[in-house]
Each structure stands twice: as C-alpha cells, then as structure tokens.
C-alpha cells in the first residue's frame, strides 16, 4: 500500500526535478527576485554619460546666471565634462513668458534641450520653479535643480541680512528621521520601511511562484496521463488513493527542494552581503505557512485539474487560481500602512488566502499568537477537507475524457465521492 504510493512519489519527483520547467523556476525565481529589488535602483542611480542641456526661462532675471554657474561647477560627468549645460532662453524682466514657454517646449520636443526650467515671478519667488521635460522620470535632475536653486536663494537671503554665506552653510543642519521597527516584545528590529516592504514582497512572490509552478506541473502531468491513457494502467495497478497520495508526496518533495534551495541562497546571500531579510523566528513561521499553503493548493490543483482534458481548460483554471494567489500581492501596500486593519485579519481566515496573507503580514508585523494558532488549525482542517474532496474528484475525474464536466457535477463528486 505505502510502497506503491512511495513508488509514485519517487517517480513524480525524479521526473519533474529533471524537467525544464522546474529547473527554470528553481534558478530563475531568485534571479527575478534579486533583479526586481536591485535593478530599478541600479538603473536609477546610474550616472549620465553625456552632458545634458537644460534651458532656463527667468523673468526675474536674477537666478539664471548663478544657476548656470552653480550647476556647471557642481555636477561633473566621470570624464570631467560638466553634467549639465544651462542654456539661457529668455532672461530678464518684461519677457513674454508664454511665448518663451512655447518656444522652449518646441526645443525640448526636438531634443535640442533635455528640458527647461521656468522660474516664476510670483510674490514669493522661492516657492515655484517648474521643470518641464519629456523625461520627468529622471528625478535626479529635479532634485539637483531644487538643491542648487535653494542654496542660491538661501545665500542671497543671507547676504541681504548681512550674514556671511560661509557661516550660513555652517549653521545648516542635516537631519534624517530613522524609522525603527519594534517587535511584539518591544525590542527594536533593524528593519526600515524598504526592508520590511521588500521582504514581505519577496516572500509573497516566492510562495506565489512556488505554488503556481508546481501546481502547473501537477495539472500538466495529470493531463498527460489522461490524454495518453497511462492513467488506465495506473489505476489498474494502484488504487486512486495511492496514486493521489504519491502525487502529493512527490510534489511536496519537489516543493521542499525548491524552498530548501532558495533558503540556501538566502542564507548564503545574507552571510556574504550582511543583509538579513528576515529574523529567524519569522523565517520558521513563514516556512510553516509555505508548507501549509503548498499542501492546501496541491489538493486544490488536483481537484481542479483532474476533471479537465485539454491544455486550454487547464490554463483557464490555473489562471483563476493565480488570481486568488495574487490578491495579497496587490494588498501589500495597504497592509504596510495599516497592519492592524480588521480586513487583513478577516482575509487571513479565508483558507485560499491564509498562507499568502500570513506570508505578507509576518514580515510587516507578526500577527498575534492566537491568530497564528487559529490559522494553522484552520489550514490543517482545510487541507484535510480539501484532500478528501480532491480524492473523490480525482477518482472520477481522471477517468473522464471528452467534454469536461460542469462545476455542479464536480461538486457533486466531491460531496458524494
């Protein structure tokens, strides 16, 4: 009895471990994770390689020249050339600002200038400066213009009051408010917003990819066995229960291989680069929810996949399940803002969402002990229920071909066996 289930498990494991889909998922997922975290930052912080020309329209006639000088002196390319050249478009009182803007816009559209800076003539000239460009995503230009103009204005004010600009620079204070996360017991944890957000995100994505890849592998293998009728030989050799148990076992082994491999990478990365994404107790909790979620979804995929007979249907069904799994990813941001929200707790008690919701919440703020205990019990009960139902559907579903049964019919199988 058990020997046959083990034989099935071994086969499922070995055949899938060697499959391309699995290997790609195994190696590509960490790469994607790292890429998602690192590449946008790298791209954003990449230095310019060419001098950019920035136009200035200055109806006050006072800022353009010092701005031009300061920008050219302060920011240099790696080859020593100035990073920015300021082109004075219209400067001085009495210029027609509207005409100047439309002309400058044309220049920007023709790529003759990167963008242009419009200094307002309002009563309080230090408040409004506009920068118009086709590439407003380059926030560095904005930051640098802001900083430069601010210091010019400050300096000017200082001089007007008879303060030495050097002393003024001396007096300025730089301050950062550092956000420090407190744990349940009130201890400080070294985790800022980005860190918490990133780790919540990374674990969610990992759980998501883990469940989706192995779920698809499972459904595809059932479909293959159905379409070439291997399944008939299988169920004449072993009982459907043995067959399903073997599949779940094999698949779990596959999942743990994946988790194990990723954990190794994670440990290696944190040892090498000194980054700890997560505390050890959190990691253990997460692994527990990974396992629970994995088993639950294994049953769901078996139940949903075994009545199907074509690849198209399988894709459709998988995509519905993917939507369920994506929900917490979408909720990551609001969950960060208000980790105590009632709706978070409610959603954590929907078995389809429990593992992912908890994976999302744990790095942000560890849920209360009773919540953990209750959700774990809920998951164990759900896994049991789902396995029983999946077993009933599986027994009938794997032998049905042709037109796929209606949902109502499948539910009847699940209920009556």
């Amino acid at each position, binding site marked *: *009895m058990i020997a046959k289930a083990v*034989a*099935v498990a071994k*086969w499922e494991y070995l055949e899938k471990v060697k499959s391309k889909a699995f290997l790609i998922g195994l190696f590509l997922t960490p790469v994607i994770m790292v890429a998602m975290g690192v590449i946008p930052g790298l791209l954003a912080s990449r230095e310019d390689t060419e001098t950019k020309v920035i136009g200035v329209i200055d109806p006050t006639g006072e800022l353009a020249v010092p701005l031009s000088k300061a920008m050219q002196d302060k920011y240099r390319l790696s080859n020593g050339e100035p990073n920015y050249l300021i082109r004075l478009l219209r400067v001085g009182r009495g210029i027609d600002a509207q005409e100047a803007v439309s002309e400058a816009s044309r220049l920007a559209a023709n790529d003759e200038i990167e963008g242009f800076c419009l200094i307002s003539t309002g009563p309080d000239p230090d408040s409004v400066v506009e920068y118009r460009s086709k590439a407003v995503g380059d926030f560095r230009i904005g930051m640098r213009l802001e900083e430069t103009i601010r210091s010019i204005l400050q300096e000017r004010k200082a001089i007007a009051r008879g303060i030495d600009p050097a002393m003024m620079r001396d007096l300025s204070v730089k301050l950062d408010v550092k956000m420090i996360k407190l744990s349940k017991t009130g201890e400080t944890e070294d985790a800022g917003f980005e860190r918490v957000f990133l780790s919540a995100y990374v674990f969610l994505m990992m759980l998501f990819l883990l469940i989706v890849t192995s779920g698809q592998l499972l459904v595809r293998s059932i479909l293959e066995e159905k379409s070439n009728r291997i399944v008939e*030989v299988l169920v004449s050799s*072993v009982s459907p229960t043995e067959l399903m148990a073997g599949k779940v076992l094999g698949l779990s082994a596959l999942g743990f291989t994946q988790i194990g491999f990723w954990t190794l990478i994670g440990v290696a990365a944190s040892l090498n680069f000194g980054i700890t994404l997560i505390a050890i107790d959190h990691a253990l909790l997460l692994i527990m929810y990974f396992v629970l979620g994995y088993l639950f979804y294994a049953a769901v995929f078996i139940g949903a996949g075994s009545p199907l007979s074509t690849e198209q249907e399988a894709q459709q069904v998988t995509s519905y399940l993917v939507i369920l799994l994506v929900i917490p990813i979408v909720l990551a941001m609001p969950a960060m803002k208000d980790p105590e929200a009632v709706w978070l707790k409610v959603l954590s008690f929907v078995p389809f969402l429990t593992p992912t919701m908890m994976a999302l919440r744990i790095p942000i703020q560890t849920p209360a002990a009773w919540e953990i205990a209750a959700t774990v019990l809920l998951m164990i009960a759900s896994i049991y229920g789902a396995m029983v139902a999946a077993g009933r559907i599986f027994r009938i579903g794997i032998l049905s*071909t042709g037109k796929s049964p209606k949902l109502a019919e499948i539910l009847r199988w699940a209920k009556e066996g």
Partner: protein
Amino acid sequence: MLVASNLRKVFSTVVAVDGVSFEIQRGEILGLLGPNGAGKTTTIRIILNILEADGGTVTYDGEPFSASVRDRIGYLPEERGLYRKSRLLDTITYFAELRGMKRSTARAEALRWLNRVSLSEYRDRKVEELSKGNQQKVQFITSIIHDPSLVVLDEPLSGLDPVHQILFMEIFRELKQAGKAIVFSTHQMDQAEKLSDTLCLINKGKVVLGGSVRDVKRQYGTNSVHVEFDGDGAFMSSLPGVRRAMLFENAAELELVPGARTQELLSAMNGKVELRKFELLEPSLQSIFIQIVGGPAGGAPAAREVA
C-alpha cells in the same frame, strides 16, 4: 481463473454493458469480439476494477477483487501511451514497481524483455524518440513484465506492422503455454480466429455468441464458398442457392442455403468470370459476426465512451 457473471454498467441513460458473463481458464485465450462501441472496453475496465460495475460479479481464482489481485493482472489499454519524456528502462521499471515488483528484479526483467524485443540498445533513450511500433513494444512489456496470471489486452495488434504482429502473436502463444489466462479484445475477426480458444461476441452491451471457436463454427456451420476471379462478380449474389454474398474486388465469399449444390454454382459462374479459385469453406468468424450483428458497420449506436 476469471469468472465474470452478469455484468452490468449504465452511463447516465446508456446501458453500455448488459448482463455480460464469461469465464476463462489458465492457459486459455479469450477473444472478446464486437463492433466499435459494443461494450468491450467497458467490460475490460470492469474486469480490471477501473470501473465499478452497477451489477454482477467478477472473481479471480474464486476470490473477489482485492489489492493483491492488482499485482496478478497485466493490462494493455486500447489507446497507447507512455510518458514521452521518460527513459525506456526507467518507464518499464516504474510500471513494474506499481505492480508490486521489487526495483532490482523489475530492472533485471525489464532488461531481459528489452533484449527480447531487440530494444536493449535504446534502454536509455526517451520514449518519444522511438517509432510508434517500438513504443507499443515497450508498452506491451509493461503489461506482462510482472508475470501476471491474467493478461488483458485491448486491441493489442491494431496499428502494428506485420513483422511486429508476428512477434506479438508469438509472445501470446508463449504466455498461453506458460499457463496465463489471456483476454484480448479485437474487432478484427481474422485475428480472433487465429488466436483465441474461446469467443465472446458482444453487441450493444449483450453477449450474443459465446463458446469455443470450434463450437461456434459448428453452430453456424452453413456451407460457404470462397471464390477468386477476374471480372465483374456482381451477379453472384443472385445465383440460385446463395443466401448471402460478400463481394470484394476479384473475390467473393458466398454463403449457401442448406443443401445447395456447389457443382451447379460452379457451372453457373462458368463463362461469366475468369475463375481462379473455388473453395468450400467453414464459415469465417467474419461472416458469423456479420450474420449476427447485421452488416459490417455493426449497426450499434456507439455507447458514450467513458475512459
């Protein structure tokens, strides 16, 4: 070895199998015949306990089905298929393990059989790299590797070239000599005639004819004549003494009314066609089949196939 009695299976409103009974001893080959959709495959699935019958019983050496019975049965399904991406030796070993063989014995047996069907050099190739015929050989091995006492083969020879057919039939005879009970289904009568000891002809879910091949032939022992000729033989069906004619290109099988005189028949043909052969026959199973089922198409509405 195997006794099936009064099997019945209903799919929603279609009665696929209706009171089918037969039995088979060790060392015997039972041909399960019938037109497409007659209920052969459903019957086979019930024997294998893949489907649960709505009525009737099946016993194996006098016992009802149990998990241990599984390991004594070998099965080749009608639609062929193996894991395409897996290696030959691994695949065969796996299926043998599922039938309760130990891994090491399974491997040794797999190698022996691969050698037997001249595939040993492909042992580490993937299944998909093999030709259709060779894939069938592999699948056939998976159905007999564990030395089962009951072998169930659904359309085992279909799609095989003559060389492979001969190889398979040779192995069937060996299995029979080794005392296995073999059930095989086919709708090709000549195969059934060559291979089986006992027949069970099913139509529309019912057994319409059963017994040993000799008994069946005796029972339907009308005279018939096989003629081969050049020319148009269309007139033959209306010759005196001919009850039924099956006309082929340049050949015909004529069933005669009792007491018909073949000499008259021969002279009636003279001059109309160029006769090359005129032979008195026992009826072929083919003609019996058609006589019972009524027409080559079988006339049976296809029952919904539930795989």
